[in-house]
C-alpha cells in the first residue's frame, strides 16, 4: 500500500519569494507522482507529474518538482511566487497497474502568498 505525507499543512510566503512544498511517499512498488492545485471553490487541476526519465519535472505556472528515489520525496518548488499562486496543493501517488493504480493523496498544503 502507498501513503503520502505532506510535511507542512500551511506555508505563508511573501510575493516574489521562492517556495518549496514538501512531499514524501511510501510504497513497496514503483510509483508515478503528481502535484495537483486547488484554487478556492474549484476542483483540482494537474500541475505536473513524474512518470519516468529525468527527475526534474517542469509544470504549469512556473512550478517544478524533483523526484528523489533514495529519499522517497517529490518536493514542489517555484523560484518566485505571485499572489495568484495562493491555493491548496496536493501531492499524490499511484502505483503501476491494477487497482493500486488509483491515486492516493496527501492531506494538502495551503500556500498563502502575501503582498
Amino acid at each position, binding site marked *: 500500500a502507498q501513503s503520502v505525507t505532506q510535511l507542512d*499543512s500551511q506555508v505563508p510566503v511573501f510575493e516574489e519569494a521562492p517556495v518549496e512544498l514538501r512531499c514524501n511517499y511510501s510504497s513497496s512498488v514503483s510509483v*508515478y507522482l*503528481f502535484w*495537483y492545485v486547488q484554487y478556492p*471553490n*474549484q*476542483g*483540482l*487541476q*494537474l500541475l505536473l*507529474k513524474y*512518470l519516468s526519465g529525468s527527475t526534474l519535472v517542469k509544470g504549469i505556472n512556473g512550478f517544478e518538482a524533483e523526484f528523489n528515489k533514495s529519499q522517497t520525496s517529490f518536493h514542489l518548488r517555484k523560484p518566485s511566487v505571485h499572489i495568484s499562486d495562493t491555493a491548496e496543493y*496536493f501531492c499524490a501517488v*499511484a*502505483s*503501476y*497497474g*491494477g*487497482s493500486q*493504480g*488509483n*491515486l492516493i*493523496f*496527501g*492531506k*494538502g498544503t495551503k500556500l498563502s502568498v502575501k503582498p
Partner: protein
Amino acid sequence: DAGITQSPRHKVTETGTPVTLRCHQTENHRYMYWYRQDPGHGLRLIHYSYGVKDTDKGEVSDGYSVSRSKTEDFLLTLESATSSQTSVYFCAISDGQGQETQYFGPGTRLLVL
C-alpha cells in the same frame, strides 16, 4: 477544461434521507471516480468505475453506493445520509489508471443536518 459536470452543486438534506449525486462527462473516458474532501484529510476515494456496470470500492466506501449505466454518467448514492457524510464531493475522470491524469469536476457541497 475537461467536460465534467456535477449536479447538484450544493445540497442541504436531513439525516436519514437518501441523496444521489450525479457526475456527467463528455470526454468518453473509461474511468470515473468519486472522492470526498474534508479538512485535514485531503481527498479520499469512495468508489470508482472502470467501465459501464463495472465498479469497485475505495478507501471510504461504507454508507455509499454507486452506479454506472452509461459511459458518461456515474451516480453516487447515500442511502441514508448521516452528519458524518457532510463533505465536498468531487468526481474525476481518466483514460486509465496509474500514469494517466485525473480530471476533476467542480464539486458538490453536501450538508447533512
